[in-house]
């Protein structure tokens, strides 16, 4: 395991870089996915259509294609920024479609009467979603949302390889290609890095699930 132990500082910076991609993508995809899910159950037909179109388009497109669209499409329309931002934006957009659908399953699991009672006391659609439906929908959607986000953590490697660089996956590439170190130990180090993130997330999910569980 010398190749790993000798390059711990590089691994560590890659680990932090991956964490930052994951952190921003988690935040962005949850926010965007929640808005999209609200669109999909909105009383406004055009919003529903927009949400459905977004999910259909994005969910059925490979992540690499979405990333290409970000990196080469956005500059065409005058948006020029770093690969880091392009990469995170692509991952946010891609993941948002899955968050939307996982959350929608949670929304569908909330009894209709809850929303009716909320509307009956005069809450608007947005208030009904924020105060009554979404808090309950999140609770029943914790397991599928967890799966979606753990998939996203691993997809961050694709984003890293795509040109963002310096993340955990790219560290592996650097060590093997540029420095010619052996693949198996280097990649084992990379894998351990991802496992630290995903296994921790799994434990956190269990905690969240128990915390938000409500008696019905």
């Amino acid at each position: 395991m010398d190749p790993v132990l000798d390059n711990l500082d590089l691994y560590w910076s890659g680990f932090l870089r991956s964490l930052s991609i994951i952190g921003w993508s988690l935040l962005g995809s949850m926010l965007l996915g929640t808005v999209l899910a609200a669109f999909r159950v909105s009383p406004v037909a055009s919003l529903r259509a927009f949400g459905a179109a977004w999910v259909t388009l994005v969910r059925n497109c490979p992540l690499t294609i979405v990333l290409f669209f970000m990196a080469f499409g956005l500059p065409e329309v005058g948006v020029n920024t770093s690969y880091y931002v392009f990469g995170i934006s692509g991952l946010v957009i891609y993941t948002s479609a899955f968050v939307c659908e996982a959350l929608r399953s949670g929304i569908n699991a909330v009894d209709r009467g809850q929303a009716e009672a909320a509307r009956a006391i005069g809450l608007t659609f947005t208030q009904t979603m924020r105060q009554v439906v979404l808090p309950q929908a999140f609770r029943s959607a914790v397991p599928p949302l967890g799966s979606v986000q753990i998939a996203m953590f691993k997809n961050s490697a694709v984003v890293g390889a795509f040109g963002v660089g310096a993340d955990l996956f790219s560290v592996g590439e650097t060590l093997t290609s540029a420095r010619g170190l052996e693949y198996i130990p280097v990649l084992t180090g990379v894998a351990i890095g991802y496992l630290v993130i995903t296994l921790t997330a799994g434990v956190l999910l269990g905690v969240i699930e128990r915390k938000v569980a409500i008696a019905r």
Partner: protein
Amino acid sequence: MARAGRMWIVSGGMTTHRTAEGGGSDEPLVVLDHVDKWFGELHVLRDIDLTIHRGEVVVVIGPSGSGKSTLCRAINRLEPIDKGTITLDGEPLPEEGKALAALRAEVGMVFQSFNLFAHKTILENVTLGPVKVRGMKKADAEKRAGELLDRVGVGHQAAKYPAQLSGGQQQRVAIARALAMEPKVMLFDEPTSALDPEMISEVLDVMVSLAEQGMTMVVVTHEMGFARTAADRVVFMADGAIVEEATPEQFFTNPQSDRAKDFLGKILQH
């Protein structure tokens, strides 16, 4: 006068303004005019004309599938209608949006299945509307919610969650939640149908006291005892149409239509 239906909550006193014969005022509050509704092929409301006066208690009865719940839900537009008009206090019901939300705040609704917000405490259930819709300060809303909960006899349960309460307690909380909005009219959609028999009376007691205090009420129910004692008027529906309207005395002792005679014959048999 215009706020008389609300004053009881604030003052806690008997601010009844019903006429000597107890029939409510002659001021129309809810007016349904030639209302029709279809569920696909099914004609669930047929040319409904109904006027509910301020302070009046109207009990809607009829066999299941007669459209009485739909009628009740149409009044705050939880069910949109296909033809005709419904006005509340002279204002026609708005389409979806902020205006409709504002109108719904004026109409209290109590559901068969209580529908208390499962993730909120009893107190939060009652304060949500006043805080979010009326913009009331949280402390004020909590104080009043406490008073209302005391009134319906569940004040000591304020910190619990709905699932920790019995059905009867939950339904009384639901009534308090609706009252917290100081509604002009209260709609009750089979409020006791999901309750165990021994809990029905605790809910009906609250409703009777509301009626006595002059609240305008539309009550869809199978509780004939409540209809007899608390109603100013009984509306009998069958197959989506209003078949008969009468005082409870007239209706239960001398129903005019065959449909009503048949219905009463069946339910009073046992």
